């Protein structure tokens, strides 16, 4: 990291505009946060794409301990052929079918041939049907996700990141404070003085909610883990419920990533990305 002679050591205090702090690069993200962030870009992308490939092997979701083709599914990807002989793809959610030809259920391969795949090849790893290879990648990167999250949480507990930056204070929990943050977002007014309450909720939701859910529900899909820790399935409501929660968790993470990227774009992407790479940003820069 470049040392600037005006550099003010970061002590958990946010340098505010208008304060007597020097206009120097402010520490924006700790090294631990930056390392974990970019490692996650890779790990989560591989996990999601290989996970969708695994889902393609049986694109039906159930609640409870068991569930197979003869059992009712709450979500199902499928194909059908109309009277004219044309193929269609669709998703059936709770009994209601929506046609999704071209993307979900039925898509075209690189050579233009129709493929009956729940998720199209461009969304999966590998891009053609290979459950064994997708599982190898998914399970190898799962170590990175689990150990990375554990290391990051411990590191962030030790260096005060959780307490100082993510902890939602009693004042912030007030409806007035939340409403103000919602209005600020709607007006595209983003402040630099630490995370807002919605931002904290989003990050804490991913850190303490979605990612642990993905790890727990993923482990619960392993018959070996279920013998070692039967309580996992008691908590999650059975193996097929765990599989459904694993899928819904992915949807949650996908939603987070979309909103996260939208917020980065809306709040000055160059400065934001620089902040996540170098850890510094120019104080006073505004989108």
């Amino acid at each position, binding site marked *: 990291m470049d040392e600037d002679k005006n550099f003010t050591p970061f002590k958990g205090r946010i340098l505010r505009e208008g304060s007597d702090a020097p206009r120097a690069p402010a520490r924006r993200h700790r090294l631990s946060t930056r390392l974990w962030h970019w490692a996650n870009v890779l790990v989560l992308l591989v996990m999601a794409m290989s996970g969708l490939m695994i889902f393609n092997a*049986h694109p039906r979701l159930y609640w409870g301990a068991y569930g197979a083709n*003869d059992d009712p*599914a709450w979500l199902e*990807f499928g194909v059908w052929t109309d009277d004219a002989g044309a193929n269609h793809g669709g998703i059936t959610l709770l009994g209601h079918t929506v046609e999704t030809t071209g993307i979900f259920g039925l898509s075209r*391969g690189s050579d233009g041939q129709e493929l009956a795949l729940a998720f199209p090849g461009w969304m999966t790893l590998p*891009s053609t049907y290979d459950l064994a290879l997708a599982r*190898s990648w998914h399970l190898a990167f799962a170590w990175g996700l689990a150990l990375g999250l554990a290391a990051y949480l411990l590191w962030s507990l030790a260096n005060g990141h959780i307490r100082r930056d993510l902890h939602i204070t009693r004042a912030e929990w007030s409806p007035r404070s939340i409403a103000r943050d919602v209005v600020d977002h709607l007006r595209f007014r983003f402040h630099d003085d630490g995370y807002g309450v919605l931002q904290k909720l989003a990050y804490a939701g991913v850190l303490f909610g979605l990612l642990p859910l993905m790890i727990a529900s993923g482990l619960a899909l392993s*018959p070996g883990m279920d013998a*070692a820790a039967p309580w996992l399935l008691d908590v999650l409501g059975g193996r097929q419920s765990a599989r459904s929660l694993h899928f819904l968790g992915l949807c949650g993470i996908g939603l987070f990533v979309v909103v996260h990227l939208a917020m980065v774009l809306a709040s000055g992407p160059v400065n934001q990305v620089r902040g996540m790479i170098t850890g510094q940003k120019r104080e006073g820069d505004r989108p």
Partner: protein
Amino acid sequence: MISLPTISRRGLIAGGGLLLSGCDRVVRQPTIEGWVEGAAGLHMPAQRLLLGRDALAREFREADMSPTFRSNGNTEGDAAWAAHAAEGFARWSLRVDGLVKRPLDLPLTALKAMTQRRQITRHDCVEGWSAIGQWQGPQLAQVLAMAGLMPSARFVVFHCADKTGEDPYYESIDLVDAFHLQTILAWGMNGRELPVEHGAPVRLRVERQLGYKQAKYVMRVEVRDTLAGLYGGKGGYWEDVAGYQWYGGI
């Protein structure tokens, strides 16, 4: 609307030509593939550490059973098997050989006369679905004890009568799973004789692993010191043919 069946989907894709995208070139790059498969080597020791030898798969009540238990893979054996099936397996016997002191030929009546274990367990297919059913048969440990293992024994291989491609189906487990309390040679399912589509007359139940390890139509149990030299050397049909992990606990 029909859900996507695995086999026909594979057929569709096989005809689709394999134009590898840039992403796939990385995925199938040998160094990277070696690294990913290497990480897979962590799964089994880590699970065994948590599992120990004896942790049991959950057993369920009759009320928890699947209304229909989906059958998967092949639904019949080869010609020799068909001849036995036509006779109700009256002259069929299970060959137990390899690194054993006393090779055995156990007719179905002998397997039924041994101390039985009945268990209602969940079958988890590698594709993602699960079915709960009841299984009955002698523990594999009893059969192995009867045959007497040689000191060099390390793996138990199951040679089967069904064929997907050129080779018959085969699977293998190590001695930890072979001597596990719930590892049985099931001749009964859901209170009846094992149905043909589920692997009659006998299939393996190794309850802490995935479905492809549960070999159906078992004709011969072979005790070995190594998996090298067994077909492709990876210890199982899908392991050799499609690269599935030998350890099916995850």
